[in-house]
Structure formats: C-alpha cells, structure tokens
C-alpha cells in the first residue's frame, strides 16, 4: 500500500464544489504545485464550522490535505489574502474560466504557468467592467500553458513575420499562413488582428471580435463534443437581459 501524502498550506482556489453526504463537500481545487485536485471537506456544511465561509470559489486560500490515491481529505483551510469579489458579469465569466480549467487540465498536471494565468485572469476580471478582454487573454494563455499554444509569430509556410496589412488563413494545430484569395471565410484574419491577439492588445471591438472568432474553434477542438455548461447558462441569462 502506498503511503499517505501530506500537503501543507498549498496556495489554491476552489473551482467547483458540490454537497457530499449529509454535511460534507466535494471540492475541485486548482493548486499551485499539484494542479487540479479533488478533496473532501468533511463536515464543512455543518453549522458552526467556519470552513464553508472560506471554501468559496475565487477566494485565494491556503489548503492542507492528506491523500492516498486520487481523492484527498481536506485538513485545514486558511484565507491567503483578500481578493476583490467578482460580481455580475465578471462572476459568470469566472465560472466559465473555472469550467475551462476543469475541462482542459489533466488531473495531477502540476502546471505553474496555468496557475499564474488563472490568477492574472481573476485580477483582470475583478478590475475591469468588460470581461471579454480578460477572457480572450486567459484563453490564449491557458492554451499556451497546456501546450496547445497558437503560433502567431510567423507565417508557417514562408517563415516570414506576420505583417499587419496582409490577410492570413488560420489552420488548426498549425498556425497562420498567407491567404491570397478574396474570400471571407471564418478562418481568414488580417495580420493586425493576429498581432493584436499575440500581444494581448485587445482594446478595440474589432480585434476582440477577431480574437473570439479565432479562439472559439480552437477551444472547441480541445474540449470535444460536450458543450460548456457555464456558456449555456450565460446564454440563458443574456436571453433574459440579465447579463
């Protein structure tokens, strides 16, 4: 039998929680050094336990747990610092970000760069009233951190740098190559749109829309058939004008 692994005060965020048995919770957490881990918080829903107040999504925490195998048992929670709470649009964007992490990151993949792009994204969501810029940057960085990075430096056919005024065709898992025709397909982008996404300069509407048009199919490619539940909920909300 393998020994019990004990982890102390690991910086982490709760991505998702659901009720488990009478008074416990099952948590999916993103941690700094251990990637996504599943933990049981025993008795955390019982009255008088302060744990539950801390075990909220988007809260910066220090978690301690012990585990043998996949599922760990939470032993301690501490607040790691005050974070600006996400409200309204930013909150739902936050759920989307959490779901992306859960769906794209393999369990046990201790990925520090994914962790830091998650933290950057939460800060950006809390700071800015428009969420789309923070979301596109996060999507780009997460893909990069997970090894699915999008090549936007050079034309993949010629090796020439991408030029703002030219048109390019974006190919899945390859990159951008010069497009000579005049057709307007969804996979055709202006050089400057690609450069804006590469440099994270998504201040204007045009480049934001282009970034979304480029990233959406790429994410769908890695996510597979099953749609993201948080996107469906966001759509329901905006259908009622509640977003």
């Amino acid at each position: 039998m393998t020994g019990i692994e004990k982890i102390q005060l690991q910086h982490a965020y709760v991505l998702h929680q659901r009720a488990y048995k009478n008074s416990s919770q099952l948590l999916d957490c993103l941690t700094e050094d251990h990637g996504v881990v599943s933990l049981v918080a025993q008795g955390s829903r019982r009255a008088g336990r302060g744990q539950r107040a801390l075990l909220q999504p988007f809260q910066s925490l220090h978690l301690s747990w012990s585990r043998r195998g996949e599922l760990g048992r939470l032993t301690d929670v501490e607040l790691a610092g005050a974070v600006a709470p996400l409200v309204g649009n930013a909150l739902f964007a936050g759920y989307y970000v959490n779901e992306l992490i859960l769906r794209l990151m393999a369990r046990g993949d201790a990925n520090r760069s994914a962790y830091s792009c998650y933290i950057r994204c939460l800060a950006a969501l809390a700071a800015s009233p428009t969420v789309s810029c923070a979301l596109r940057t996060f999507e780009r960085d997460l893909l990069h951190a997970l090894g699915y990075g999008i090549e936007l430096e050079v034309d993949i056919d010629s090796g020439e740098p991408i030029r703002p005024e030219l048109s390019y065709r974006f190919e899945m898992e390859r990159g951008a190559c010069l497009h000579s025709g005049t057709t307007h397909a969804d996979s055709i982008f202006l050089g400057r749109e690609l450069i804006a996404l590469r440099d994270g300069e998504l201040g204007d509407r045009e480049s934001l829309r282009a970034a979304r048009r480029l990233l959406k199919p790429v994410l769908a490619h890695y996510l597979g058939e099953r749609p993201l539940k948080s996107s469906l909920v966001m759509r329901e909300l905006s259908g009622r004008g509640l977003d």
Partner: protein
Amino acid sequence: MSHGYSPLLKQFIDALQCLPGVGAKSAQRMAFHLLHRDRERARHLATLMERASCDIQHCERCRMLTEEQLCALCASDRRDVGQLCVVEIPADVIAIEQSAAFNGRYFVLMGHLSPLDGIGPDELGLDLLEQRFSDEPIKEVVLATSVTVEGDATADIIATLAARYGIDATRIAYGVPMGGELEFVDSGTLSRALRGRRAVELGPAEEVS
C-alpha cells in the same frame, strides 16, 4: 457484492442505492431488514412511495412540494400578499416558518444558480417567478438564498428582475450568529458582518432615575 443473490433480490438492492448516501453495503442491510424483520412496513413504504411519486407535485404558485394544486401557505388567506420570500429548497420554507418572523408568501427555486452544473434561470423557474411579480401586488421580495457565491449571484439576478416590476428587493442579514463571540467567528463571516453593519436603533429616551 450482490453476486450470489436471486435476480429480484439483486434488483431490489440495486434500486435502494438510488438514495443519497446509500451504497451497496447499506442497501443490502436495508433490503434484509425490510424483508426479514418488517414486511408489513415494507409494504406500507411501497404504497407510500407509489402514491407520493404519483401525487406530489410542485405547487403551481411557489413550487413547494405538495399533493394539492396549491400548497397550504399559498392557499391561506391570512398571509401578507405584499411580501414574497425566495428560498432555495422546501426545507428552507419550513425553517423560516419555524422562526415565526415572516408572514408573507414563498417561492422555492429548488436550487441556486450553478453554472458548472448547468443550473441557470430556466431550471430555477424564474419564468414563473416573473409571472408572479407581474400578477401579484408584491411590494417586497425577501431574498433568502444561501450566503455563498452562488446564493448571492442568484439573489442579484432576482433583484434585477424585481426592479423591472418596481418591487423592492431585500437580502436576509448575515454575520455573527446569535450567541457568537467575535473571537471565534471566521474571518470571512466577520468581514461580511462589518461590511453589512447597521445603525443602532435607539428606543425613545427614558428617564433612568
């Protein structure tokens, strides 16, 4: 686990496992108990489960579970129609009733917004709630969803809906519990308690001596 059992017994044990927190071992124990010691109550349980699963529906107006068209609270004419309390689950209605601090009507969401589980406005019956906002003379909607990130998000959305119908939305207070000493209250609760602090209501001045 139920390998050597007869097909019907095996089916029975498997079926019991649909209950929350009941695994193979407990299901087996329950099945033996019902069959071996308490057949009469097993039959009683079966009849009740049959009847309950057919007859108990959601109340047309508040989504509380009931076998009538309207639950007792919605049917009562002694409740204040100007106040509507929005809660997450039927057990919350009972809890608030026991507190005896509320005399309005209820609306049960049967959950809270939970984007990662795909629970959005449609699942929470917000259409029905909006219908009530437009049809009934509601003055105040009391948001008694749980004090979690999801519960707050649910409350925000309902408050937005209520505002469209000119209805005031209030959120139940939260913070230090009765009998709570600050030293033992967790920092998260304490910070909310401080943010939600309120002015002390002074009674009419009285002569002390």
